[in-house]
C-alpha cells in the first residue's frame, strides 16, 4: 500500500518538478567569465526548454551532441572551431534551434561524413543565420522532418569532387524549408536524395565543383527564386516527379560538359519564369516527360534547349529565345514535344494581320545543329560561312530537319 502511494507521490512530484522546470526555462550563458566555460558543459547541464546563450569568442570544441529540446544561440557570432578533430554540432532530438554561430574546420571522413551541423532523425529543427567555413559537409539533414535551414553562409574549400562534401545535404527528409542560404566551394551546393514536399527558395549557390543543386529521387518539391551561378555542371534534377521550378536564375555555367539545368528522368514538372543566361546548354532534356516550360528566358546560351528523342509530351510555351548559338537541338527525326507561342530572335517571318503571331511557322532546329548531333566532329565548322549558307538553304527548302519540330504560332514580339 505504502509502495503504491509512494509511487503516486513520486509521480506527482516529478510531474510538478517537470512542469515547474519547463515553466521557468533557464538561460545558460557560456563565455570565459560565465558559469559555463564550454558549450559541452552547458549542454550537459541543460534540460528541455532551456536556452544556451553562447557569447562571442572562439570555442575549440567538436562533436557537440544535442539530446535535449533546447535552443543553442550565439551572440556576437561565437566561433566553434572543430580543429579538424571531428564534426561540429550533432542534433539527435526534435525542436532544436541552432543560430548565430560560425563553425569552422570540420574533419574530412568518408565513413562518418562529419558536418558543421548534422541532424539525425529529428523534427522541427531550425538552423538559422550561421556561417560555415571549411566544413566537410556544412548542414547535413538525415531523416529530418519539418526542419528549416535559413540564411546561412556556407563557404567550403573543395578541391576535387571525390574528396569534398555537399553544402546542404538532405537525405530522406520531408517538409523542409531551405531558404536564403549562400553556398559556395562544395561538391554540390544543395543535395537532395529521397526528400519530398520541401521548399528551396531564394538561395544563392555558386562556384561549387559539381552541381549548384542536385535532386535525386525527390518528389513533389518546389524551388524558386534561387540563383545558380558558375557551378561546375550547373543544376541537375533527376529521377523525380512533380517538381516546380519558378523564377530561378541559371547563369554562367559555361564549360565543356556544363548545363544550366539538366533534367533526366523527370516527370510532370513545371518550369516557369526562369532565366538561363550564358550556359553551354540552357536545358538538357533527357528521358523527361510531361514537363511544362512556360515564359522562360533563354539568353546567350550555346544551346538553349537540347531535347533528346526520349523526351515526350513536353510543352514549350511562350518562352524567349534570344542570342543563342543554337535554339533547339535534338537527335530525333520526330519531335514529340509541343512548341508554341515562343519568341525566336532568328524568326524571319512576317505578321500581316498584326495579331502578334507570326503568319508562317518557325522551325527552331537548324540544319547545322542536326548535323552536329549526328557527327559531333562538325563542331569544327562552327561560325563558318558554309554553315550559314546550309542553314539558309534548309530554311527555304526543308528536307532534313524534323517535320514535326515546329512552332506553328511563333510570337512576333518579345514575351514579357
Amino acid at each position: 500500500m505504502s509502495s503504491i502511494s509512494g509511487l503516486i507521490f513520486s509521480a506527482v512530484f516529478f510531474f510538478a518538478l517537470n512542469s515547474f522546470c519547463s515553466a521557468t526555462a533557464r538561460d545558460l550563458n557560456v563565455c570565459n567569465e560565465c558559469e559555463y566555460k564550454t558549450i559541452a558543459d552547458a549542454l550537459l547541464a541543460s534540460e528541455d526548454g532551456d536556452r544556451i546563450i553562447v557569447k562571442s569568442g572562439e570555442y575549440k570544441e567538436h562533436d557537440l551532441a544535442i539530446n535535449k529540446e533546447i535552443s543553442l544561440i550565439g551572440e556576437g557570432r561565437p566561433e566553434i572551431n572543430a580543429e579538424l578533430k571531428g564534426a561540429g554540432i550533432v542534433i539527435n532530438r526534435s525542436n532544436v534551434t541552432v543560430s548565430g554561430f560560425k563553425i569552422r574546420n570540420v574533419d574530412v571522413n568518408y565513413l562518418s561524413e562529419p558536418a558543421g551541423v548534422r541532424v539525425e532523425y529529428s523534427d522541427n529543427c531550425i538552423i538559422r543565420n550561421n556561417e560555415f567555413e571549411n566544413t566537410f559537409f556544412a548542414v547535413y539533414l538525415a531523416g529530418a522532418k519539418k526542419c528549416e535551414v535559413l540564411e546561412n553562409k556556407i563557404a567550403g574549400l573543395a578541391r576535387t569532387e571525390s574528396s569534398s562534401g555537399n553544402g546542404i545535404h538532405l537525405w530522406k527528409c520531408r517538409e523542409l524549408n531551405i531558404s536564403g542560404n549562400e553556398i559556395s566551394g562544395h561538391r554540390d551546393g544543395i543535395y537532395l536524395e529521397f526528400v519530398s514536399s520541401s521548399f528551396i527558395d531564394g538561395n544563392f549557390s555558386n562556384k561549387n565543383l559539381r552541381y549548384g543543386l542536385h535532386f535525386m529521387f525527390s518528389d513533389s518539391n518546389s524551388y524558386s527564386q534561387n540563383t545558380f551561378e558558375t557551378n561546375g555542371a550547373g543544376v541537375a534534377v533527376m529521377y523525380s516527379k512533380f517538381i516546380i521550378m519558378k523564377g530561378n536564375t541559371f547563369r554562367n555555367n559555361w564549360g565543356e560538359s556544363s548545363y544550366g539545368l539538366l533534367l533526366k528522368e523527370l516527370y510532370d514538372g513545371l518550369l516557369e519564369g526562369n532565366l538561363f543566361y550564358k550556359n553551354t546548354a540552357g536545358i538538357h532534356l533527357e528521358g523527361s516527360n510531361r514537363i511544362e516550360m512556360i515564359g522562360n528566358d533563354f539568353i546567350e546560351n550555346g544551346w538553349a534547349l537540347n531535347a533528346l528523342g526520349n523526351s515526350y509530351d513536353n510543352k514549350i510555351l511562350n518562352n524567349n529565345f534570344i542570342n543563342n548559338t543554337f535554339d533547339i537541338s535534338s537527335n530525333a527525326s520526330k519531335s514529340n514535344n509541343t512548341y508554341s507561342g515562343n519568341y525566336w530572335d532568328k524568326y524571319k517571318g512576317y505578321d500581316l494581320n498584326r495579331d502578334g503571331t507570326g503568319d508562317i511557322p518557325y522551325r527552331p532546329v537548324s540544319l547545322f545543329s542536326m548535323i552536329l548531333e549526328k557527327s559531333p566532329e562538325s563542331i569544327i565548322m562552327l561560325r563558318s560561312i558554309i554553315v550559314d549558307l546550309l542553314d539558309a538553304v534548309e530554311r527555304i527548302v526543308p528536307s532534313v530537319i524534323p517535320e514535326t519540330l515546329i512552332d506553328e504560332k511563333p510570337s512576333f514580339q518579345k514575351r514579357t
Partner: protein
Amino acid sequence: MSISILKYVFFDLLRSRFIITYGIMLALISLGVAYFSNDEMKTSLTLLNIILFIIPLVCLIFGSIHFYDSGEFIEFLLTQPVSRNTVFRAEYLGLTLALSVAAIAGLIPAIILNGITVSALFLTIISVAMTFIFTGLAFLSSTINTEKVRGIGLSIVLWLFLAIIFDLIIVLLIILFRDYPLENLIIIFTSLNPIDLGRILLLLKTDASAMMGFTGASFKLFFGSTTGIVVSSLAMFLWILIPYFLAIRIFRKKNF
C-alpha cells in the same frame, strides 16, 4: 632602289580612292558591330566572320586588278636597270602593306571601344596574315594569266573554293565518314585552308570554345597547344611564301 619603288607604290595606293573606301568601310562595320553588341567576345566573333569573308575577297580581286592596271608601269620599270625580283617584291609589299594599313585602320574603332584584348590582337594578326596570303594568291593568278578577265576569274574561283567549297567538302566528309575516327584527318584538312585556320584559332581564344565539348576536345588540345599554334603559324607562313615564290618564278620568265 627596291625601297624607293616600294615607297612609291605604297603611298600611291594609300592615296587611291579604293584603299581609302575599303578602310572606311571596314571601320564603319567594326564601329557598328562594337557599338551594338555589348560583349567583347561577341564583337570579336562577328568581326572575325566579316574579316574572313571580306578581306580574302578584296585582296584577291583588287590584287588582280591592281596587277593588271600597273602592267604598263611594270613594263616601264623593267626597262630600267632593276631586276625583276626587285620590281615584283616592291609591287607585292607595296600593295600588301597598303591593304594591311587599311585593314588595321578598320579594326581601330572596335579596339577603341573594347580595349586591347587577346582576341583583338588575334583579330589584327589574322587580318594582316589574310591580306598577305590572298594578295600573293592574286599576284599568282595574275602572273599565270596574261588576260585580265581570266586572271580576275581565277581569283574569284580561288576565293569561292577557299571560302565556301572547301568547307562544304569538309562537312560532307564529316557526314559521310562519321562512323570513323576523323579528328586527326579534320585537323590536317583544316590546316590546309588559311581561312579555316584563322577562324579556329580565334574561336579557341573565345569562350565559344567551351561549346567544342567532348569531341571537340581533341581539336582544342591540338590547336590550343604550343605545337598547334606553331604548326598553324607555319601553315600560314607557307600560304604566304608558296604563292609568292611561284608567282615570282613565273614573273621572271614572263614575256612582256
